[in-house]
């Protein structure tokens, strides 16, 4: 079965890996247009990633490099590095639940909107249920900044992967296997600010994924439904499993 989730990529929205594999190296390309209260523009990114998983555990890391155009200025730079880990606590391949966590390191330039400017902890719970050709997955978590940044105090930041300083995160989605090698799916995810000023964020996604030999490739079209994370964003990713 194809992985419901793409290979680890620089996205803060939790996605639980739903399949076992050994090692995988991947790359994602992202392009988006955004318009917030203060900034409008677009960005493109290349996001290499590494991932390891077995039946119970998974871990991965990703780092992004961006071209960002904001209010008439163009910047090139790295985004925040993200490390991800997950463990299945109960269940089997058909239905399981567990804990996952991500942590981002502030390697991106927060003043230009490429990084948060602080460490971000993003733990969550996940559940996955496979029924014949259908896979359903959901996550719920809480993300919190460690340290502070003036740019982030007043709402979501950075421009490339915006989050609130303190927020409840959530996602829910499903996939349908058209064939053993081809899957389509849809997902909604978001963040709800807690305790500090922020914006409620909702993102909707449509996704297609296919496998060929050791390669898994996916294309995803995302729309910012609430909170101005972006207007529209496309993500194409591929990963080679070893």
């Amino acid at each position, binding site marked *: 079965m194809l992985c419901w989730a793409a290979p680890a990529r620089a996205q803060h929205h939790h996605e639980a890996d739903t399949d076992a594999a050994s090692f995988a190296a991947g790359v994602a390309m992202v392009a988006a247009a955004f318009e917030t*209260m*203060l900034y409008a523009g677009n960005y493109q990114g290349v996001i290499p990633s590494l991932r390891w998983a077995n039946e119970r555990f998974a871990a991965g890391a990703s780092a992004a490099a961006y071209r960002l155009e904001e*209010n*008439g*200025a163009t*910047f090139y730079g790295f985004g925040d*590095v993200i490390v991800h880990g997950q463990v299945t606590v109960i269940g089997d391949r058909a239905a399981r639940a567990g804990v996952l966590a991500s942590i981002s390191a*502030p390697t991106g330039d927060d003043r230009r909107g490429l990084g948060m400017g602080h460490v971000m902890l993003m733990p969550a719970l996940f559940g996955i249920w496979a029924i014949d050709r259908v896979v359903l997955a959901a996550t719920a978590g809480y993300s919190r900044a460690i*340290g502070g940044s*003036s740019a982030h105090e007043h709402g979501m930041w950075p421009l490339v992967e915006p989050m609130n300083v303190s927020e409840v995160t959530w996602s829910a989605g499903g996939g349908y296997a058209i064939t053993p090698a081809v899957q389509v799916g849809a997902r909604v995810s978001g963040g709800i600010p807690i305790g500090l000023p922020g914006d409620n964020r909702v993102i909707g996604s449509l996704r297609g994924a296919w496998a060929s030999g050791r390669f898994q490739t996916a294309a995803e079209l995302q729309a910012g439904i609430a909170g101005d994370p972006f207007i529209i964003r496309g993500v194409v990713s591929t990963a080679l499993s070893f």
Partner: protein
Amino acid sequence: MRFLILLFVACGPSPTPTGTVCPDPDPLTLTWDNFGRDFMTRYCTWCHDSSLPRSQRNGAPLYHDFDTLEGVRLTPDHIDEQAGFGPNAENEFMPPGRCPTTKGGALDTNCPKPTAEERRNLAMWLACEKNREFMRDAGVDAQ
């Protein structure tokens, strides 16, 4: 652990409030007319000008326009954290390295930089201007 520490410090200094406090009573030695307007015109309004559309702002955020006193009053703390000198911080994030020679133009020249004294005066003026705004809101003519 060493790697994590390196990541924490790799980003360098961040914008920090200068902690400048306006004397009480306000000496009124720094005002928009005798300091603020000239400072903003020389160093800021190449990009932070309300007449510039998004595409000509060279990255300056909307609603951060310093061609009027009213515009400055919207974001005094941000200005202080970006360009002010004071007891708690010496911020030199703005002006940036490159500036346009014409308002809203391409970044084709090195930005003129305020002196340390000008940056201290900026922080002091902003601190006093915030108090004056409070006084005005309270119905007291501070000037």
